[in-house]
C-alpha cells in the first residue's frame, strides 16, 4: 500500500481517492506496467491556432505603433501561455490522463528550461517534450535543438557563419548533456559553428538556413570533420560523462535530493548501454527495491506544480478562473513556461521560504473555503504601476470521493484513514489532538475541515 502510494507520488501526482481505493493493493510490477501502458496511449495537446506572423521581438520597437503592437501581442500571448499552463496542470491532476508521461515531461521542462512567451511556440515545445519524454534521449535532444522556442530563447537565430552566437552551444554542454568540467572553450566555439543556421522562421517553425551555416571543418572534443549539430550531439552522447550527468539529475528528481553515487553509476551504465532509453531507465528505477527503501520515501519536497496537481487530484478541484493556477505557480516560484533561467528550477529546500511555506500550508484551506488569500505579487517589470492583490482562489471542489473513504468510521478512524491516504510521512500530532483542535460539532463540516487541516501539515509538502 505504501509502495503504491510512493510510486504514484514520484512517477505521477499521487492517487485520486477512487484510484487509491482501487489500486492500493496492487503489486509494484503491475502498477508500473499500468503507468507505462497509459503513457503509450496519451494524446498530444491540441494546437489551437497558428501564428500569422511573429513580431520581431529582438529588435526594440522603433515607433510608437510598433511598440504598442508588440506589447499588445505579448500580453495576449502571455495570457494564452498561462491558460496552457492551467490546461497542463489539469492533465497532471486528471486520472484519465497519463500521470507518468506528464511527470516525466515536467522533468524535461525543467531540464531543457526555456521561457516561452508565445502560445504556439509553447504548445509545440510541450508536445515535443511529451513525444520524446520516455523515448531515446538522442531524439529528444535533437528535437529540442530544432525547437523554435529554444532557438529563440538561446539566440540560435543569431548564430551565423562568421558571426557565431555561442549561447545554445554552451548550454547544450553545460546544462543539457555533459555538464561543466568536461569541455573546453574551444569546444563551445566549434559546437556553435556546427549549429549555425539552425533557425526559426517568421511563423515560428524550424528552418535550416543554408546560407548561414558554416560548412567548414571543425575540431570538437578531439575529433575533426565537417560537423553539423547532429554530429555534435552524437559526440556528446558517446561520452559516458553525459550518461552520468543525466542519470544523476534523474536520480535526484525521482529518487532522492542526496545523490547515491554507487547507485547512480550503475544506472548510468544501464542508460549508456541502452542508447539513452529514458523509459527503460525509469522502469528500472521504479521496480528497484531500493526505490522503496525508507531512506528514499517521504523526504522530497513537492514542487509547487506537483503540490497543486496533487491537491486538484484529491479534491477534484476546478478553478473558476484560468489565471488562478498561474497565480499560485508564480507565488510559489514555479510558473510553467517561465523558469528562472536556463538552469531551471533549483528544487529541494530552495522551494521554501517563509512566504512560500505559508501559502503552501494554506493552499488546501484556500481551495476548500472562501478564506481570503489577499496576496500581492511582485509586478511584472514591464508593468506601468503596482498591481492589485489577489483576493480569492475561487475553486469548486468535489469532496464526495475523498469522504467516501471515511464512510461509517468514527472521527478518529476517519482522520487516520485520510491521513494514510494524503500523507507520505505520518505526522507526530495524534489524530485525537487534531480532532480537538478542529473544534467542530457538525459531522460534514468536521470532515471538510479535517481534509483542509491534513493538507496544512508540513508532512503534506513531502512525497
Amino acid at each position, binding site marked *: 500500500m505504501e509502495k503504491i502510494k510512493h510510486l504514484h507520488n514520484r512517477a505521477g501526482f499521487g492517487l485520486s481517492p477512487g484510484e487509491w481505493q482501487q489500486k492500493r493493493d496492487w503489486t509494484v510490477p503491475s502498477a508500473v506496467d499500468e503507468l507505462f501502458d497509459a503513457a503509450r496511449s496519451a494524446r498530444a495537446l491540441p494546437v489551437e491556432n497558428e501564428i500569422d506572423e511573429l513580431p520581431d521581438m529582438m529588435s526594440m520597437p522603433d515607433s510608437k505603433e510598433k511598440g504598442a503592437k508588440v506589447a499588445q501581442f505579448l500580453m495576449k500571448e502571455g495570457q494564452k501561455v498561462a491558460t496552457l499552463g492551467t490546461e497542463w496542470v489539469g492533465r497532471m491532476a486528471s486520472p484519465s490522463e497519463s500521470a507518468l508521461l506528464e511527470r516525466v515531461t515536467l522533468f524535461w521542462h525543467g531540464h531543457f528550461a526555456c521561457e516561452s512567451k508565445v502560445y504556439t511556440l509553447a504548445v509545440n515545445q510541450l508536445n515535443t517534450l511529451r513525444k520524446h519524454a520516455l523515448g531515446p534521449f538522442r531524439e529528444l535532444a535533437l528535437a529540442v535543438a530544432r525547437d523554435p522556442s529554444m532557438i529563440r530563447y538561446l539566440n540560435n537565430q543569431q548564430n551565423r557563419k562568421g558571426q557565431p552566437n555561442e549561447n545554445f552551444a554552451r548550454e547544450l554542454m553545460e546544462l543539457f548533456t555533459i555538464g561543466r568540467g568536461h569541455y573546453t572553450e574551444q569546444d563551445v566555439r566549434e559546437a556553435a559553428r556546427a549549429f549555425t543556421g539552425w533557425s526559426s522562421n517568421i511563423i515560428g517553425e524550424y528552418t535550416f538556413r543554408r546560407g548561414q551555416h558554416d560548412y567548414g571543418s571543425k575540431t570538437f572534443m578531439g575529433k575533426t570533420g565537417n560537423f553539423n549539430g547532429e554530429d555534435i550531439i552524437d559526440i556528446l552522447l558517446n561520452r559516458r560523462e553525459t550518461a552520468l550527468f543525466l542519470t544523476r539529475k534523474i536520480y535526484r528528481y525521482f529518487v532522492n535530493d542526496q545523490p547515491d553515487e554507487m547507485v547512480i553509476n550503475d544506472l548510468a551504465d544501464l542508460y549508456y548501454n541502452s542508447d539513452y532509453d529514458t523509459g527503460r531507465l525509469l522502469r528500472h528505477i521504479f521496480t528497484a527495491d531500493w526505490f522503496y527503501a525508507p531512506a528514499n520515501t517521504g523526504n522530497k519536497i513537492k514542487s509547487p506544480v506537483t503540490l497543486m496537481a496533487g491537491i486538484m487530484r484529491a479534491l477534484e478541484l476546478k478553478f473558476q478562473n484560468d489565471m488562478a493556477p498561474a497565480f499560485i505557480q508564480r507565488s510559489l516560484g514555479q510558473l510553467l513556461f517561465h523558469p528562472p533561467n536556463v538552469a531551471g528550477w533549483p528544487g529541494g529546500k530552495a522551494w521554501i521560504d517563509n512566504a512560500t511555506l505559508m501559502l503552501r500550508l494554506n493552499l488546501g484551506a484556500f481551495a476548500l473555503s472562501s478564506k481570503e488569500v489577499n*496576496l500581492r505579487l511582485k509586478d511584472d517589470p514591464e508593468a506601468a504601476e*503596482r498591481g492589485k492583490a489577489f483576493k480569492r482562489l475561487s475553486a469548486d471542489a468535489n469532496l464526495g470521493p475523498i469522504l467516501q473513504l471515511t464512510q461509517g468510521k468514527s472521527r478518529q478512524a476517519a482522520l487516520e484513514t485520510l491521513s494514510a491516504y494524503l500523507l507520505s510521512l505520518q505526522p507526530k500530532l495524534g489524530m485525537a489532538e487534531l480532532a480537538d483542535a478542529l473544534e467542530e460539532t457538525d459531522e460534514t463540516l468536521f470532515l471538510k475541515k479535517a481534509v483542509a487541516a491534513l493538507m496544512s501539515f508540513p508532512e503534506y509538502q513531502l512525497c
Partner: protein
Amino acid sequence: MKRRSFIKHSALASTAMMAPAFLQSFPPARRYASRAGKVLVVVQFSGGNDGLNTVIPYSNDLYYNLRPNLAVPSAEVLRMNDELALNPAMTDLKSLYDDGLLGVLGNVGYPNPDRSHFRSMDIWHTGSSSDEYWQSGWLGRYLDSECAGCERPYHALELDDGLSLALKGEHRSGFAMSSPEQLRKNTDGALLKALAKYEEVHNHDNESAAYLYKTLVDTQASADYLVEQAGMGRAEGDYPPTAFGQDLRQIAGLILADTDTRIFYVSLTGFDTHANQKGRQERLLEQYAQGMKAFVSDMKSNGLLNDVLVMTFSEFGRRARENGSRGTDHGTANNIFLLGGGLKQAGCYSKSPDLANLDNDDLVYQTDFRQVYAEILNKWLEADPVSILKHRFDPLGLL
C-alpha cells in the same frame, strides 16, 4: 532604563509567560540592549530606470543631441556640480545631497550586459557574471556566512508577499512580509496553532520534514515578534501616500523600535518607460525622493543617521539615444545611489557618462556593480566579500 526598552521589556515579559517554549527562543537577547550594528536598506527600481534622465549630464551637448524630445533643459535641472544634475522631480533628494548625505556613483554595470529584465535582475540579485547561472542571492549568501545575528529569520526582511532571489541563500534565507497583519493571517489557522502548541511533534528524523517545521516555527515566532515591534515604532516623516511610501514608513518604524532586523529590501516598480517616459518616470522619482527625505528625517531625529545606509539600484539603465515613442529602450550601465550619514565622502563619485564612446548607443560600464556589493559587505556589514561574491573585486573607498 530608557522608555523604549521598558515598554519592550514589559511586553516581552507578559508574552513570555504565556508562550510555549519554542517561542521563547525568539526574540533573542539583544532586544534588551539599545541599538547595535548597522542597518542596510536596499531599494530596487524595477523595470530599468533611465539613469541619464535621473542624473543628468546637463553640460554635455551630446546628451541633448541624443535626446531631442526627452532631454531635460539645463535651466530646469537641479545642479550638483559643473557636469551632473538631478532630475527636477527630485528636489527632496537634492536637499539630501546638499546636506552631504547622498553619494552618486555613475556608469555601474557588468561585462556583456543582458538586456532582458529577468536575466539582468537575476545577475544583479545573485551577483553572477552574465555567463553564469547562480541559484542563491548575494544577501542570502551573506546570511549563510555565519554573520552575527543572521540566525534570526528576520535578520533580512523584504517588504513584500514574496521573497526576492537576492535574499535567498543556500542554507538561510531572508524573510518576506508585506505587513505584519497579512503575515499573522496566514500563520494563525487552527491546525497551525495546534502544531505550534505541541513542540514534540516537530521532531522528525526526516531532514526535509525537520526543515519545514523549523521554517514554520520560525515564521510563527517572527510574526509574533514583528507584529509587536510594528506597534512600537513611531515613524513621523512625511511619507508619500503610495505603497512604496508606506513600505518605507514600515521600515522606519521597525528601525525606530530597535527591531533586530539589519537588512531591509523594498521595490519601486514602473520604470520600463518605452513610451511617453517623462511624466511616468518623474512621478516615480518624485515618490522616491519624497520617501527618502521622510525616511532620513525620521532617522535624523532619532540620532540613527550614521547607522543606516540606503543603496538604490535598477537592473539596467536605458539606451542613451531616445526611441521614436518619446521613451527609451533597454540599455546597460546606470547609477547607484548611496544614502546615509556613514559615507566616507558624499557627492558625485564619478565623472559624467562618456556619451562620445557609446557601444551601439549604449553606455559602457566603468564600475562593476559587484565592487559596490563588495564595499557594502566589507565595510558596512563587516563580512568577507570574497567568499560571498566568489571573486575579488577592487575596493571603491566609499564607506
